[in-house]
């Protein structure tokens, strides 16, 4: 039994290695876990109380909730009342949402979150508590209308969720800087001339600025690209299509 669960986990890890973006990861999870009644995944680091909605989005690594529920959850700051999120600070092993029942009595805000989730066919779920290298509390929730989960299935889900989370963090690390880098027009122009093999003095002549000014723009471009010298800056900028 455990041997089979381990083999299933290892198969899952092989498939996970081949996923290249969030959608592929969530599709893989939903396919693998459909038999458990799991229909949705939500994972991320826990935002500090009072974090604005826009920044809360940055904490989310994957969210396949129905969009109306996902938006309401963020807009109303439900992360701060959600009892499954609160439990992350106390548990180190996966817990079923149904385990939390007794703690909810008398907590109107928590009950509201859980009841409204139920209206979106997210009545049942299991949450895997995690902690990132930076020490941030995080969680991976797998949910559906009704789960068919045995406590013996939890260790496997624990592993799958841990790996999926790590993989999603890596995908984000790989993709985020690409989107984030934006060169100013003069930085881009100076770098374009540098790619043509021109010296600082020559670039200054073409752009009608001093050598000192050229150095300033190139230095700033290097910083934005996270590179240490001119050659590397040109290579990275080319690869990212910022110059050609």
């Amino acid at each position, binding site marked *: 039994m455990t041997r089979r669960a381990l083999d299933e986990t290892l198969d899952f890890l092989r498939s996970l290695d081949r996923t290249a973006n969030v959608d592929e990861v969530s599709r893989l999870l939903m396919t693998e876990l459909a038999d458990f009644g799991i229909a949705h995944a939500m994972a991320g680091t826990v935002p500090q109380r009072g974090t604005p909605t826009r920044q809360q989005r940055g904490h989310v690594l994957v969210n396949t909730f129905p969009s109306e529920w996902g938006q309401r959850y963020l807009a109303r700051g439900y992360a701060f009342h959600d009892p499954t999120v609160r439990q992350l600070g106390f548990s180190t092993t996966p817990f079923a949402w149904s385990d939390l029942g007794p703690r909810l009595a008398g907590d109107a805000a928590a009950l509201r979150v859980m009841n409204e989730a139920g209206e979106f066919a997210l009545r049942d779920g299991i949450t895997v*508590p995690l*902690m990132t*290298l930076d020490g941030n509390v995080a969680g991976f929730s797998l949910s559906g209308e009704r789960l068919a989960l045995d406590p013996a299935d939890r260790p496997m889900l624990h592993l799958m969720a841990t790996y999926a*989370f790590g993989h999603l963090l890596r995908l984000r690390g790989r993709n985020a800087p690409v989107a984030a880098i934006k060169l100013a027009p003069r930085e881009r122009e100076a770098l374009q001339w540098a790619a043509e093999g021109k010296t600082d003095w020559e670039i200054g002549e073409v752009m009608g600025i001093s050598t000192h000014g050229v150095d300033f723009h190139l230095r700033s471009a290097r910083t934005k690209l996270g590179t240490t010298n001119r050659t590397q800056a040109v290579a990275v900028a080319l690869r990212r299509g910022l110059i050609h």
Partner: protein
Amino acid sequence: MIHLVTAANQYQYCEEMEQAWRLRHTVFVEEKGWSDLARPDGREIDQFDTSEAIHILAIEEGRVIGYSRLLPTTRPHLLSDVLPQLCEGELPRGHDTWEWTRQAVARSHRARGKAVNPVSLALLSGILEWGMANGVRRLVLQMPTLYLLHVVQLHFRARPLGLPQSISGEEIIAATAEFDERTLARLRSLRGDPRPVLAPSYPHLAA
């Protein structure tokens, strides 16, 4: 600076090894409460501290502030002799595979707010530097499942050897963790220091 102590150079580290046994006792017996390791002389030494073991010491101004131990998987080690139930299939064994245990950092040097502190990162960097220079590419780990994400985040290729199991109240998993220069680069960037951590002369594995 990180120092590697083996049977070959142990005579140069008598005082530091004394500190290391005591640090292990403080961390594992007194703090973590692993009472079966308790010793009246306050030096935590077990059956695996043989001439085969490699001790990794983080030393700051003569004081041992961090410790790790490597055991060859070709000899008896924790997974083979103490916790074999954590491994479902065949034990990972080989000259390229060493077991990493007894990771400890002095309380005074644990970073607050961060899950992994700089001394741990330095110890691990030392292990990898030694490993890459000696044809070792894989570590065997037994750890709380919560730390598995850290191993993945450090760009190890970690594979579970079994499902997580509850051992004295903690959920523990055994895993192999393959590493290469990317892992070392990741550690160095996290430490914010590209330089090697190992003291210049350290014993190599005999061929």
